[in-house]
Each structure stands twice: as structure tokens, then as C-alpha cells.
């Protein structure tokens, strides 16, 4: 299951929802972002009951990247209640993303796929 790419409008709608949102900020020219893809897909599936995971292409959404202060990619930011509660830059493993999500959600039980 590939993670959906969203524009700013769709992103804002998702932030209004009940589920926390994990946003993967990326760009087509970023090789590290591409490497993160399979791990990001696996995380999206593993946490699908807890989180909505989306991708945001910063080249197509420069305004959104600006307002979210994305200076480095890949950056994964977790939003809860409409605001960013944590972010991680260039994680080196799926395990690092898992740990980040668990810590950011404050010990909520993760769903293992």
C-alpha cells in the first residue's frame, strides 16, 4: 500500500480529523526520501488504525513546506489536534520511525501488522 500524496487543502482537512496525521515531507530529487519509502509504507500499514499517513511533495507544496518550517528532507512530522507534536529528520531505520511515533504519541499502544 503506497502512502497517498496530498496537497495543502487536503492536508488541512485531515488535520481537522480525529486521527493524528503523520506527514512525510519529500521531493522527487531527494534520494534519502526515496530510500525511506518502503519503511514509510510499512509504518502506514502498521499504524493505520491509529494514524493517517500522508506524503507531501515540497516542490509542489512550497507554501505548506514554508508554513511547516521544513528546512530539511526527509522530515516526518506527527500532528495531533491540528498541531505538530514532534518531528524526525532523515531516520536511518524503520525502527527509528517506530520509536519516534511511540514516544510522540505518549505510550499509546501500537498496532503491529
Amino acid at each position, binding site marked *: 500500500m503506497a502512502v497517498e500524496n496530498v496537497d495543502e487543502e487536503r492536508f488541512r482537512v485531515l488535520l481537522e480529523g480525529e486521527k493524528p496525521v503523520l506527514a512525510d515531507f519529500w521531493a522527487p530529487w531527494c*534520494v*534519502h526520501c526515496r530510500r525511506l519509502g518502503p*519503511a514509510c509504507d510499512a509504518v502506514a500499514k502498521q499504524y493505520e488504525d491509529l494514524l493517517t499517513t500522508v506524503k507531501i511533495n515540497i516542490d509542489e507544496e512550497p507554501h505548506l513546506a514554508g508554513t511547516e518550517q521544513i*528546512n*530539511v528532507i526527509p522530515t516526518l512530522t506527527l500532528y495531533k489536534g491540528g498541531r505538530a507534536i514532534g518531528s524526525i*529528520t532523515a531516520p536511518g*531505520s*524503520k525502527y527509528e520511525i517506530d520509536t519516534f511515533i511511540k514516544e510522540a504519541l505518549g505510550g499509546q499502544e501500537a498496532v503491529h501488522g
Partner: protein
Amino acid sequence: MDDKQIYDMAVIGGGPGGYTAALYAARAGLRVVVLEKISAGGQMALAHWVDNYPGFEDGIDGFTLAEKMQKGAERFGVKTELAEVLSVEFGVIPRVIKSSEGIIYAKTVVLATGAGPAELGIPMEKELVGRGVSYCAACDGMFYKDRTVAVVGGGDSAVSDVLALARTSRKVIMIHRRDTLRAAKVYHDFLRKAENVEFCWNSIVTELLYEERLTGVTVKDVNTGEKRRIACDGLFISVGRKPASDLVQGQLKLDKRGYVVADESTCTDLPGVFAAGDVRTKALRQIVTAVADGAMAAHHAEAYLYGGG
């Protein structure tokens, strides 16, 4: 993950060496799992274009080549786990591999963990990664379009980084601890022609200057000891590579640079444990030599399990 299953072979690292070992072993009828922490390919997956892997007349990007290697191995039943290996116990049979996704047992292990960029080892280096400090010009160069950047190093990859950055950055300062480059001759002409490249010879970086982001570096002249500051928006570190062998320290014989000691057979000092690809002591670290290692590791693993070879 099924904790009780014992694999014939566990491959740690899903780069070209790892997936080739897996492919050959699976085709020989072994049950194989590849433990990869993020995605197939290792360092190769970060290569924008690979022109020296035979069979692709127009070249191929490293990530796609990695995906093809993974799928090619999985076609023969190889299982991939997106798992980070936390510790290994090679002194028992089956070998025990503790990972983020559970414990894996295997009769043989191919260590194909590769190598990564070496660090300068100066204060704030880690903290400023992504805020001015980078180890990959191909990855992060675009963030420094029309800015001033510095590159540390004097080998082929440092010069290649300088030339790539010179195309987009305003100015590139090359900092090298000697007064000549180790880089291959072919690069020297290109460097001479690049108008926005400056050299800072006989110098080492001793300090990173920063506010929110990197603002410059302090360099020290290795002959006079004199220090001076250089303003730059980005610092690209290209001072060689270091093997990813921390995991096996104390369990396998390593050379003084940390590479796992093994010859072309890929056999380490521990029977049934093999080292393939960049993590092994070898003269030439390339994709083609990594895949050759993979085939050798599978061959010797089969001999270890069933005799012969």
C-alpha cells in the same frame, strides 16, 4: 515474526552483497531471511546513477537496481524483514539475532552491513546534520543553491562532490589537510576549469560555527598551527568511509580500521559466518565486487551446512 523458525541463512543488510547471497542460497534450496533496516540497496540506493554495473547499457539509478535485486531474490522465496538488528550472538548454534521485530535464529549468517561515511569527530557535528552539515552532496546540494559551501576531503568522492556543488552553489571551498589531492587525474582538469572553486590547503576543520544553523567553520593550518574562520552555509564531509561492524565487535576478527577480516571466500574466523560486500577487507569496494562476495558467501554457506565445496 515467527520466533521459533530456524533459517538456514540470515543475511544482515539488504545491499547488493546481501541480496546476491540470498538469491544464490535460495536457489540452492536454503531458507533465507534478509534483515534490512530501511530499504534495499544500502549505499547503492543513494547513487543517482550507476554506469558501472554491467547489463544496463544506459545505466540505472541505484534505488531501482536495489529494488530489482530484492525482487529477484524474493522470486525464489527469500523473505525480507524491515528490522534493525540490535545484537548478535554468533558463538551458539543456531546463531541468535535480536532485532527490533523479534529474535531470529539461523544456522549461518552473512554479514553484509556495508559501510557509511566517516565523521570528522568534532563537537556539534551530529547535532548540525540537516542544519548545514551533510555527508551527501548528491542528496543535499540543492538546499545550497546560490550559497557558499565547503567540502572537507581530498579523494575522488570529495572532488566529485566539489564539482557537483560548483554547478549549483555560488562558491565552493575545498578544505584538504595536504597540499595536493589524492583524487584521480581525470578530476584535476575539471577542477581547474571550475571558476567558483577555492582551495584551502594544509588545513583541518577544528570547529563548527553556528547559530540556528551552521554559519562557518574554523580551520587550522597543519604546518603553522594558525587558525582562521571561513564563513559558509553548508559543510559537506567527504573524508572516507567506515565499516558498519560495531555489531560484531568482539565476535569476529576485525582489522584496525574496523573491517571484518575475510578473503575472497568471505569466510570469517568463525565457521558459518560470512562477510560480504563493503564490510569485508578488500581492495576494491564496488557493486560488482559486492555481488561476487554474495555468491561466494552462499557457496561456502552451502558447503558449511551440507559438506563439500
